[in-house]
């Protein structure tokens, strides 16, 4: 078994895995690789980053790092489509800022290919901010809601 572990560890040498944990029967292995981090100094960062373009869609994405504080959970879009706050035009929105939501509660609809996809909250808490506007196109992984965990 150890031989197999050895083979596995070596084979991951040039991967980007940083930490690995394996438990199999009674064997438990934890490994941590040294990965050269590209963020060494400010200068390197500036050099190595292509400025990300401001597109119509990206423009409205707040900087994730800024808001990702300890208590704030971000609900992101799992698909590309159009964001709607209410089940149909003219009806009440699913949620408003300040509302408390349960895990699994519907937060919005994203329409993709004429299908209305209900997006559910993946954490309970209070809606602090709704990051996109009704009818706005959203891309994959785009932050939609800030939820304060309570």
């Amino acid at each position: 078994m150890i031989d197999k572990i050895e083979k596995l560890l070596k084979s991951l040498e040039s991967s980007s895995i940083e930490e690995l944990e394996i438990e199999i029967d009674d064997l438990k292995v934890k490994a941590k690789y040294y990965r050269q981090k590209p963020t060494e100094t400010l200068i390197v960062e500036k050099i190595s980053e292509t400025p990300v373009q401001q597109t119509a869609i990206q423009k409205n994405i707040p900087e994730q790092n800024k808001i990702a504080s300890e208590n704030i959970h971000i609900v992101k879009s799992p698909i590309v489509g159009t964001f709607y706050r209410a089940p149909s035009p003219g009806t009440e929105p699913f949620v408003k800022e300040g509302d408390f939501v349960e895990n699994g509660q519907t937060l919005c609809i994203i329409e993709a290919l004429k299908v209305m996809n209900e997006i559910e909250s993946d954490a309970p808490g209070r809606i602090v901010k709704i990051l996109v506007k009704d009818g706005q196109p959203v891309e994959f992984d785009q932050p939609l809601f800030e939820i304060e965990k309570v």
Partner: protein
Amino acid sequence: MFKKVLIANRGEIAVRIIRTCKELGIKTTVIYSTADKNSLPVFLADESICIGEAKPSASYLNIPAIISAAEISGADAIHPGYGFLSENPGFAEVCRACGIEFIGPSSETMVVMGDKAQARNIAQKAGIPIVPGSDAVKEPKKALQFAKEIGFPVLVKAAHGGGGRGMRVIENEKGAEELIGMAMAEAEAAFGNGEVYVEKLILNPRHIEIQVIADKHGNVIVLGERECSLQRRHQKVLEESPSPFVDKNLRIKLYESARKITSFIKYEGAGTIEFLVDKDKNYYFIEMNTRIQVEHPVTEMVTGKDLIALQIKSAEGEQINISDPDLNGHAIEFRINVEDYKKNFRPTPGKIEKLLLPGGFGVRVDTHIYEGYSIPPYYDSLIAKLIVHGENREKAIKRGQRALSEFFVEGNIKTTIPFHIKLTEDDNFIKGNLDTKVLEDKILDRIVKNK
């Protein structure tokens, strides 16, 4: 004219398409996966939409996400590039069902030409030479019978897939049936269909292909041939135009055959007709690629025609009534991959710490890399195409050597640049003595061992 084109691809071909769209005054939207957030196409396009995770099935092969992105961006056409969904008739179908023009031929054409057996039949009906061989067969015995009829050696090939899987060379009758059975099992495992066909094996053939552009009004333009014989594991490594082997007489015949089949199937857009050519200049249709190809720039360099622009023009329904362009000078494309050629061309994705791109007269670089770019490990290893043009083949080779010598890529990666430098010094290459096996049989060993 299209107002906005969505590019359903990544890497250098996405950059390539953005460039022509800009020149034509068409807006561009690129889709991208989370792994390509900092990629050059995302930076260069007018608009970019993240559509899914890194793995291709979640992003570049994710048809619903791509269509949804096209809808929210308001694109009126989709360019599929090469690879990914470019030869997927279902995708073309869905695009059109959603009112988005798919820049490529009809899905019916893609279905037919995507099936080797059907494509052979079509070629035969169009009256162009094909490699003597069978229809798709299921039973090993029947395949053996065909093999005997056309004579050994023969090639057994999967009828519903490519890439060399389910492919077997059978030298003679001895043990032939078992080998055919094995090929069928492989094909079944790889493509879900065990049918194969049996072909006469053309010894040491050249792989020569003809570029065509057809509009929706029946005009077919032939834009010269490409010599693509230098291959490793059926992957092209270097292409050139014109072929050093094709003379005026053969060119006329290849042009005529290419035009025949293109017209016969009422093809639309950019397409490539691949031929095997034996040492006596007999040629045989093998397949048609219904998309733009990696190596299209060599054709652009010798014809002066922008193939992506013509492809878009064709999709827009415009008349393309130009005559077949003359071939001017000689062009060579070197595919630069992040691979360690000394270790069996193992991919080496990583970060580019330092980059100098070659430039100057007669040098073109099509690439998506830049200094500081991290090559993600999820996609293919092509990082740049270096294309050189010269007054003749000899000058093009010298220019290629010069350009390769000033192409520096540093970081925790290896590229095939040193491999190409050695390839250009090889006698077989310099003399143009090429066939589809020469690289693996005669050149590779010498290069790797640094003789």
